[in-house]
């Protein structure tokens, strides 16, 4: 069956034809000749029901992946899902880039929008404005439709409750970022190295935005915080691990990961200081992937209330939808006071700010 296909007549309106979808289509009409099959696929209605298999590159955690796929298959029949799990969005982004000559992914789900956005600008993503995206506030989605935000990750702090109760009587839990400058915290904080981790950098950018882009004030804060930091760690999850073990008492980190650790029985608590940063967890469609039509069906479903509730339940993230309450132990969107986080500015000024931070804290 090594048939060469002519490209679809209209690149924009036609689902991309691949060998797999072709075989499926060809298989449905017994008695059709091969030529007839091609004609049927090319000339058939554009709005045929999506089917076949899709490949999802997922930066979500393992439990979420499994439950998510099961729920999707139940909700949308006829589409099989193959998940490539890699809980590191940067690697998935790199994979999509390196695979651009022959894309293997249909959907890229999870990970901060910072990882989706450049791919869209490089022309590697398929613009798609899902009908279900209307429930997503504009500030959480790409105006060009390359990616749609569907959850929020809140930056905050993880606290070891055992050690905090035993060793830090009279000290209050951090309600504002300045509370971390109390000398009582000296040596008890572990912080993800901003040169190596996205989270560590978001923390610096958050300070800058908190001071209305007054970088000197932000650096002054980071410098004073540096005096209290016992250690810097190589990854964000490692910080939670270290606080959970009691090696340190507090670490700035991602709220959903902190709650996950807490639910596993670690003696930790999620504390959110006022004026914090956040990430927009995005979903996008890879351009030229094996099964774009089915990918759209997947994105449509990921933006439903049902999927949002499942994600909140399994990963403790906040949904961008107003009608989905947060996970137990997690604050609501109204409760956390987010800074006015300017994503484009933060990414454009990354190297400069990191150098400034290195100079201020060494």
């Amino acid at each position, binding site marked *: 069956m090594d048939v060469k296909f002519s490209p679809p007549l209209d690149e924009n309106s036609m689902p991309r034809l691949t060998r797999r979808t072709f075989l499926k289509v060809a298989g449905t009409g017994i008695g059709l000749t091969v030529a007839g099959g091609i004609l049927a696929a090319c000339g058939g209605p554009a709005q045929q029901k999506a089917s076949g298999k899709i490949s999802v590159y997922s930066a979500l955690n393992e439990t979420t992946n499994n439950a998510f796929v099961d729920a999707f298959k139940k909700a949308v029949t006829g589409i099989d899902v193959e998940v490539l799990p*890699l809980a590191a969005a940067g690697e998935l982004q790199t994979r999509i880039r390196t695979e651009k000559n*022959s894309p293997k992914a249909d959907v890229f789900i999870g990970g901060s929008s910072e990882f989706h956005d450049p791919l869209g600008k490089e022309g590697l993503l398929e613009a798609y404005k899902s009908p279900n995206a209307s429930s997503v506030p504009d500030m959480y989605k790409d105006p060009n439709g390359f990616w749609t935000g569907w959850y929020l990750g809140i930056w905050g702090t993880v606290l070891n409750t055992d050690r905090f109760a035993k060793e830090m009587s009279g000290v209050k839990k951090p309600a504002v970022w300045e509370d971390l400058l109390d000398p009582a915290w000296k040596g008890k904080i572990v912080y993800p190295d901003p040169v190596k981790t996205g989270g560590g950098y978001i923390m610096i950018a958050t300070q800058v935005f908190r001071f209305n882009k007054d970088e000197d004030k932000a650096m002054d804060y980071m410098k004073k915080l540096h005096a209290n930091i016992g250690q810097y760690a190589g990854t964000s999850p490692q910080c939670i691990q270290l606080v959970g073990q009691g090696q340190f008492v507090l670490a700035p980190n991602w709220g959903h990961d902190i709650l996950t650790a807490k639910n596993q029985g670690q003696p930790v608590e999620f504390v959110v200081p006022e004026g914090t940063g956040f990430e927009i967890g995005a979903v996008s469609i890879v351009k030229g992937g094996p099964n774009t039509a089915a990918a759209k069906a997947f994105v449509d479903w990921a933006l439903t209330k049902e999927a949002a509730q499942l994600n909140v339940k399994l990963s403790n993230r906040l949904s961008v939808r107003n009608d989905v309450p947060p996970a137990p132990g997690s604050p609501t969107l109204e409760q956390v006071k987010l800074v006015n986080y300017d994503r484009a500015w933060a990414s454009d000024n990354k190297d400069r700010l990191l150098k400034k931070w290195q100079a201020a804290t060494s």
Partner: protein
Amino acid sequence: MKTLTREPMLGLTLLILVALMFSFILYPQIQVVLVPGLKGYFAFFAEGMWVKPLVNSLEAMALSTTTAVILGFLYAYAMIYSDMPGKPFFRLIGMLPLLSPPFVVAASYILLFGPRGLISYRLLGQSWNVLGLGGLWGVQTIAYFPFAYQLIADVLARSDPRMEQAARNLGAGPWQVFRTVTLPLARPGLASAILITAIYVLEDFGNPALIAGRFTVLPTQAYGLVSGFGDFVGAAAVSTILLVLALMLYLGHLRLEGNRSFVTVSGKAGSMPRPPVPRLVTWGAFTICAILSGVILMVYGVLVLSALTKAFPSNWAFTLEHFDYVRVHSKSLENTFVYCSIAAILCSLYSVLLAFLIQRKEWPGRRIVDFLAIMPAAVPGIFFGIGYATAFNQRWLDWLDRGVLIMISMIFWNIPVAYRAALAGLAQIDRSIDEAATSLGAGSLRGFRDILFPLLREPMLTGLGTAFVRAVTTLSVVIFLFTPGTTVATITIFQLVNDFNWGGATAFTVGLIGLAIAVLSVIWFVTGRRAIVTHSIGG
């Protein structure tokens, strides 16, 4: 060149080997080097974010290499010269650090020696800050001393005991013999051991990622740029700095190695026991080996404890539930076993054939191919993986099974290891032996097959074992290549760690190490030989 034109089969073999090398080593690497473009390089180098990691890398390299080589030398000396008890045990323990997959082992150091560590805090009441250069130094010393040990043991074992006996007979004391005979004889080998260990330390990613804290080295910076910021261009530029550094070290190694004679299979047999060392030295050696082994056993002990307890270190209740993850993810263990076994076998066969063509035959471009065969050793794993993903993910190659591509990457990623072993083995066999065969009318390939190949069994097994272990423990090479159906064990561990599933990650690691030990034991059992895993790219 004459032999090649006279023997078309030989020429054809050579052509195929070289073509494979260009396709699977040079071509993918060029893809990565080209990614940033001149502008990208200029911008990145002008920004200057690489200066500190570069300095840090050199500092960590100097410190860790020094201690690893000193410990390696002591260990090797104890194993070869002394008659201390428990040698087989120490040999086994000295192999363990080679089997550790990234991420998990460095974490058990923190559990032991961290600010609230079991040893540091609960036992000694100290609160050590191990995250940083200090911790990295300690961990890398333990992780890389086995490499230094294997390299140096090789050199020491090769020195002729007759020289030492003669010196003793002429009235020299043990210390004088060590200083004036043993050490000078070992010097070129030592220097090359230092350089090779330095390359390994320089490329180390797993340990600095978990224990170096803010002390950023080049591999962690490259990884952080990709994984934290999606900065592919910056990562490629950092990798290029690493590549240049490693190549410089490697050229130094070649220079030092150039004029050593290794011939030990010459027909003129003759061996005698080494002169005995004083009792004090024997017991000193035993003490040092015992302490080292103790530390290694503790580190792996913590791993096993984490796998067998509910939530180590806060809840020590016994459980087997974490091993359920070994069952759930058995497919990735199976893939690891299949890919790594096949890759290791093909890798050692390819290497032995290549070593034969390079060491025994004269042809133009020989030096370049020799260099290419070593190059992967100087390439950071993440760089190798990105190169493969960029070069071979093409529409016209879509028929290629991903598992096959992963195997190919493992074969060529480990060529330096097996190739150096084969080369060293060949250097020990006197040319007159296979020349006798060709004089009697056998073709070169027949001479290789019937004479050299059987004699090269040992270096081949060395290459096989080491290539296997390295393939089993690599994460960065496969992370850009695996697909849902071709997941391997290190990816699973990575996922479990990122999922905060510490018990599952340690249980799976225990399973993986068990698998590696089982495979090595089978090789050992079949061949009746012990030291399977050895120095890799050294001489």
